[in-house]
C-alpha cells in the first residue's frame, strides 16, 4: 500500500499559514541546539519534522509551544510576530502540544491530568463529566481504564502517552503539535493516533508531527523538514521526495550503508534495516 492516489491533493501552499518559524536558533548555555531553522504550518496541512537523536526536534517543538524562547529568528502566528513567554499563551492561541516527556503530574488522578489547565468549571468542577470525558477519550484510543481516579503515575508508559495525546486532540483548536506521539504505543494505538492526525487535518487544523518512523511520516505528511545537528538538512514538499529518499536521509545516508554492510558480514540474522519500516505489508483482515 505504498502511497496510492497521493498526488491528488497538492501541497496546500495556498492554504492559510497558521504559524511560521523563520531562521530560528536556540542555545542551551554552550550547547547550540538549533540554528537557522524555518518551518511553516498551514491549516489542513501536516508538517513532519524528522531527524536523528539530538537533532533538535524537541527543542523546535518547545519553542512553538512557548516552553522555551528562541534566541534568533522570527516566530509568527497568524501573520503577527510573537515571542511566547509561557505555554499558556500558545494554548490560548489554540496550539495544543504533546511533549516527548508527556507533561503529566504523576501523583494526580488521570482525569485531573486530562483536564489540567482547562478544567470544566472554575469554582465548581464538573467532576462526573470530567471523569466521563476522560474515560471516553481513552476508550476511543483503545485504552480501557475502569478507574480514571488512579494516579497517572501508575499507568503503563503507553497508557500515559495516550492520555497526553487524547488531551491534546481534545483541546487543540487550531494546531496540533506532536512530539514522537507513537513512541510508546502498540500497533493498534499507533493506528488510532495516525487516524486522529488525519482527522485533524481534515478538520482544517495544522499539524506538526515528529517521528522516527519514516513510514508513519510519509503516510500522512504533506511537508518534510529534515534536521541534522540543529540545522536544516532538507525541506521537501511531499511531491518532491519519495519514501526511499526520505528513509535514506533520515538514516544518515552513507553511514547507514556502512552499518548494514558490517552487520551482514558479522551476523547473518541481524539486520539494521529492521529499523526502517514499511506499511506495505498489511495483514489480510
Amino acid at each position, binding site marked *: 500500500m505504498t502511497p496510492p492516489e497521493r498526488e491528488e491533493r497538492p501541497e496546500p501552499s495556498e492554504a492559510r499559514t497558521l504559524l511560521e518559524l523563520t531562521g530560528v536558533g536556540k542555545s542551551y548555555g554552550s550547547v547550540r541546539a538549533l540554528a537557522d531553522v524555518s518551518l511553516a504550518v498551514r491549516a489542513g496541512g501536516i508538517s513532519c519534522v524528522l531527524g536523528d537523536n539530538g537533532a533538535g526536534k524537541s527543542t523546535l517543538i518547545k519553542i512553538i509551544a512557548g516552553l522555551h524562547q528562541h534566541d534568533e529568528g522570527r516566530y509568527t502566528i497568524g501573520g503577527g510576530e510573537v515571542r511566547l513567554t509561557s505555554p499558556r499563551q500558545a494554548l490560548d492561541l489554540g496550539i495544543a502540544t504533546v511533549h516527548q516527556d508527556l507533561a503529566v503530574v504523576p501523583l494526580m488522578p488521570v482525569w485531573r491530568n486530562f483536564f*489540567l489547565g482547562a478544567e470544566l468549571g472554575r469554582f465548581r468542577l464538573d467532576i462526573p463529566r470530567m471523569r466521563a470525558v476522560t474515560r471516553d477519550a481513552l476508550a476511543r484510543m483503545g485504552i480501557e481504564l475502569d478507574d480514571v481516579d488512579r494516579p497517572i503515575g501508575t499507568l503503563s508508559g503507553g497508557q500515559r502517552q495516550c492520555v497526553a495525546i487524547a488531551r491534546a486532540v481534545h483541546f487543540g483548536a487550531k494546531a496540533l503539535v506532536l512530539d514522537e506521539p507513537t513512541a510508546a504505543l502498540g500497533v493498534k494505538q499507533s493506528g488510532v493516533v495516525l487516524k486522529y492526525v488525519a482527522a485533524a487535518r481534515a478538520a482544517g487544523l495544522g499539524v506538526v508531527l515528529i517521528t522516527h518512523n519514516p513510514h508513519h511520516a510519509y503516510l500522512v505528511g504533506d511537508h518534510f523538514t529534515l534536521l541534522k545537528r540543529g540545522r536544516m538538512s532538507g525541506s521537501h514538499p511531499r511531491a518532491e521526495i519519495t519514501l526511499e529518499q526520505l528513509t535514506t536521509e533520515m538514516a544518515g545516508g552513507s553511514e547507514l550503508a556502512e552499518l548494514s554492510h558490517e552487520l551482514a558480514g558479522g551476523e547473518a540474522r541481524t539486520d539494521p534495516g529492521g529499523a526502517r519500516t514499511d506499511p506495505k505489508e498489511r495483514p489480510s483482515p
Partner: protein
Amino acid sequence: MLAAVAVFLFFCVAASSFLRASSIGTVLYAASTIGIMAVPVALLMIGGEFDLSAGVLVTTAALTSSMVSYRLTAVTWVGVLVSLAVALAIGGFNGWVLGRTRLPSFIVTLGTFLMLTGANLGVTKLVSGTVSTKPIGDMQGFASCHWLFASEFTVGGLTVKATVWWWLGLVGLGSWVLLRTRFGNWIFAVGGDPAAARAVGVPVARTKTCLYLGVGFCAWVLGQHLLFSFDTVQSGEGVGNELIYIVAAVIGGCLITGGYGSVAGSALGALIFGMTSKGIVYAQWDPDWFKFFLGAMLLLAALLNSWVKRRAERGPAR
C-alpha cells in the same frame, strides 16, 4: 483518621479527666490555634513550597492591628483591616520574591521570617517603647472584635472558642478549594510537577502567590485572636510555631516534596498534636519527660497512619 481516634481513646484511658466536656474544650482550643494555620500551610505544602515565616507572621498581624489602633486612637476595626492588608502584603511579598528570583522557598521565607522577627521587635519598641504593645481593651470596637475573634460560648457544658469555628470554616473552605475548584487542581499540579504544570498552561507563579496570600489571611485571623483574647501582644511571640504547623500538615499526610495531601488531613494532624500535647498534661506524666512522650506519641501516630494507609492500598483482597 484512625491515629486520631487511637490517640483519643488512649488518653481517655490514660487520663481520667481527659473526657470531661471542659477538657475537650481546652483540647479543641489548642488544636484550633494550630489548625487554623495548618490549613494554608498544608495547601502551600501540597503546592510544593514552605513558609517558615508563618509563625511570626501571626504575631506581626496581631502587633500591627494593636499598634495601628492605638496610635491612631481609632476604632479597633481600623487596626484589624490595616493588619489584614499588611498580612496579605507580606504573604504576597513571599510569593512574589519566590516567583521573581526562583530561589528555594526555604531561603526566601527564612529571610522573611528573620526580617519579621526583627521588625516585630524593632517596630514595637519604636512605637510602644517596650517589647509588648499597650493594652487596647478599653478602646472602641474592642467588644465586637472580641466577639468575632475571641469569644466563647458554651453548649451543654462544652465551651467552644471562636477559633474552633474559624478552624472548621477554614478547613471546609480549604477542602472545597483543593478538591472542587480549578485552583485546587492547579495546587496539586504545581506541587507535583511544576514543569509539567507549566507546560499545560497552569500559571505556576500566580498559583503559588495565591497560596502565600492564603497563609497571610489565616495568620491574620489567628493574629487577631491573639490580640483580642490577650489584649496585649508580646513582640517575641510565634517563633518556632511555623514548624508546628508544618508538623500538623505532615502528620496529616502532606508530602513534604509537594503534590500530595489534604486539608482534612492537616486538621487531623492538628488534632493529634493538640490531643497529644494536652493529653500528656491531663495524664499527669512526669513533666520533665514531656517532650519525650510527645515525640514518641507523634511517631507512633504517624506510624499507625502509614500502616493503615498501606493496608488499605493493598486492597481488601489480601
